[in-house]
């Protein structure tokens, strides 16, 4: 609004500068406010993504916002025993490396000989030792302990040090969670549930929507009203009767009551009200003239539907398909009730809840597992956002 006001020719030059000043402040405030909201809304997801590729030891001790800074920790290692000593230039010397084999680019910042004084000396400095002589520690962990008298101690004294680890990014967390925690199996399970449950309702709904949009028959208005009503009926109303029904059928046939077939049918049914509603709204907006001229030419309803209406309704079909796919992929309740939480069948959302329970503090697994579960919807969302938004608008603003 203000931008357009700024473009308007202003008749009085005196007020022009006044307007200008006001606009600038308003504009800047708008930029800042929007930036604030965007930051607030993306921050948590960014944190998840960054954490999922951080080294798990670093993730456990420092916030993800420090991911690019090196993290410091305190540690201790034993220096060598008397048996390790060699004689050099008339002095007794013990050499070694405090970091051992686990160095991985770590750098020691300071060291000390008691737990209380971890930072008694900077790297390169020297400290006297209780067992005699003095020790020098380098940043890479190499230490030299020299003494004029022979060493006698049998167990190596502890050297305490502060070590900085450079930021490390790795895909190890993903490998770990995919291999050990069944995320891979659940990923397959989610796909198995989602694809048939997305495709089946489209066909069923499209025919019904066409009938409700372009055929005249008694009870049509009533059915439309029922569909609109069913749009908001909570799923909770369906669960218990369906569970009893499934159990009953399973008893009769001696089969398992929880399985993919049951979930596909349930998701199909639960998606139908929205599908019929969206598609009917869209189809009834198609130009009447085309339909009527086709009818006059002798085309049957079936021909008109498959040959004209279905291709023309592609945007609405795509919108619904995206909705349904996202809803199924993200669903927890229906999958829990009709498929169960057993290891071989549980879907990604269910697996993630299980991980929250069992791996509550292993954030490297939780973050990478969560990212695997949200990456598919995010790809669908960002590549097909246009259809998604269109469906959203058609589904609620009518």
């Amino acid at each position: 609004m203000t931008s357009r006001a700024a473009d308007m020719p202003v008749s009085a030059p005196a007020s022009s500068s006044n307007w200008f000043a006001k606009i600038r402040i308003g504009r800047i405030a708008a930029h800042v406010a929007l930036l604030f909201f965007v930051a607030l809304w993306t921050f948590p997801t960014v944190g998840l993504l960054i954490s999922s590729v951080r080294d798990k030891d670093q993730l456990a001790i420092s916030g993800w916002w420090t991911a690019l800074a090196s993290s410091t920790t305190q540690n201790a290692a034993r220096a060598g025993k008397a048996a390790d000593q060699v004689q050099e230039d008339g002095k007794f010397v013990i050499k070694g490396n405090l970091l051992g084999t686990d160095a991985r680019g770590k750098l020691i910042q300071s060291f000390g000989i008691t737990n209380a004084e971890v930072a008694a000396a900077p790297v390169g400095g020297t400290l006297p030792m209780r067992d005699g002589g003095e020790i020098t520690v380098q940043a890479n962990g190499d230490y030299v302990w020299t003494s004029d008298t022979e060493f006698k101690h049998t167990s190596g004294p502890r050297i305490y040090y502060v070590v900085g680890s450079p930021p490390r990014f790795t895909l190890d967390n993903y490998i770990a969670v995919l291999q050990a925690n069944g995320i891979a199996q659940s990923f397959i399970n989610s796909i198995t549930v989602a694809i048939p449950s997305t495709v089946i309702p489209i066909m069923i709904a499209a025919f019904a929507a066409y009938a409700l949009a372009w055929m005249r028959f008694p009870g049509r208005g009533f059915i439309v009203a029922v569909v609109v009503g069913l749009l908001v009926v909570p799923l909770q109303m369906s669960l218990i009767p369906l569970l009893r029904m499934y159990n009953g059928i399973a008893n009769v046939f001696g089969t398992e009551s929880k399985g993919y077939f049951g979930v596909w049918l349930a998701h199909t049914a639960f998606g139908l009200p929205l599908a019929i509603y969206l598609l009917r709204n869209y189809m009834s907006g198609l130009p009447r003239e085309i339909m009527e001229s086709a009818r006059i030419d002798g085309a049957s309803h079936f021909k008109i539907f498959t040959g004209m209406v279905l291709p023309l309704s592609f945007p609405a079909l795509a919108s619904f398909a995206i909705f349904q796919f996202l809803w199924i992929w993200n669903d927890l309740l229906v999958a829990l009730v009709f498929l169960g939480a057993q290891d071989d069948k549980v879907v990604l959302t269910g697996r993630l809840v299980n991980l929250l329970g069992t791996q509550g503090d292993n954030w490297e697994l939780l973050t990478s597992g969560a990212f695997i579960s949200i990456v598919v919807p995010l790809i669908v969302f960002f590549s097909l956002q246009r259809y998604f938004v269109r469906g959203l608008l058609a589904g609620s603003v009518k």
Partner: protein
Amino acid sequence: MIQQILGAAIAVVIAVAACFTYFWGTNWVLDKLLSSNAMAGDDVTRRDNLRSGVRPWLFIFPALLFLSLYLIYPVFETLRLSFFDKFGQNFIGLSNYAWAFTDGIFWQSALNNIAWLLIVPFLSTAFGLVIAVLADRLWWGNIAKSLVFMPMAISFVGASVIWKFVYTYRGPGIEQIGVLNAIVTGMGLPPQAWLTVPFLNSVLLMIILVWIQTGFAMVILSAALRGIPEETLEAARIDGANDFQIFFGIMIPQIWGTLIVVWTTITITVLKVFDIVYAMTNGEFQTQVLANLMYRWMFISGDYGRGSTIAVIIMLAVVPIMVWNIRRANAEEGTR
């Protein structure tokens, strides 16, 4: 694994083939069976009318079957079961409802639900509106909208993990890895195990849903804002109205209907909210809500009577919105 995917693919093929066979086949049978080719006069008209009377029902039959079996019948069945005992065998009248209204946990859940209903739709709609207004006047507004909208694609469970990480707690003296505790300790306050602090924890769970639903509100309201005639805004500006007057005096009244639609849609979502509470606290620390309580009674306790009763109570809260929706749809039908 490959087998499983193959199974799903085959299921898709079979389902599509079955649908096609049904629709094509029944149409073909109808045309053959009630053919009017060999007839004359009134008979032809009668046959034609009969055919066009039957055909819609062939088109609509599979959908009706699914809707009746999976949605309509269960509504009545759940209502019936709410008057029956644990196993759905003995009629016990209103005992389940009497239990509900004297049960402490039920009341706690209901009150929590009311708090959710008051806070989540309001905040989501308000944030959505503000972001829509801001984004529509800045050049990078579309990018901003995309980013705010993104949580809509994320599952409630995924969002729960994301936010549990924000709220995560380490003992005092250790560096906090959760953003919230890092901010709090940065201000010199002691860290908190946020999810165990009653009522505050409920609010923190609500924030997750607000985070998800704001994008929805923003998209719908943004479209409505663009529908406001430019002349109206222009006229107000010429009359000397400032931005705030335009916002509250013109924009809000113009999109009032849409605001209500957004509000009620989010209200329905809130009533059904289950995943967030289930994943974050599972109703512990006084965060229970009705949908999760229903799940507990149904699955953990295996009490179909009480489970049904809670479902019916959730349904009762939805009914006013449902009636209003149907009325609105019918009114629109009249103008079409």
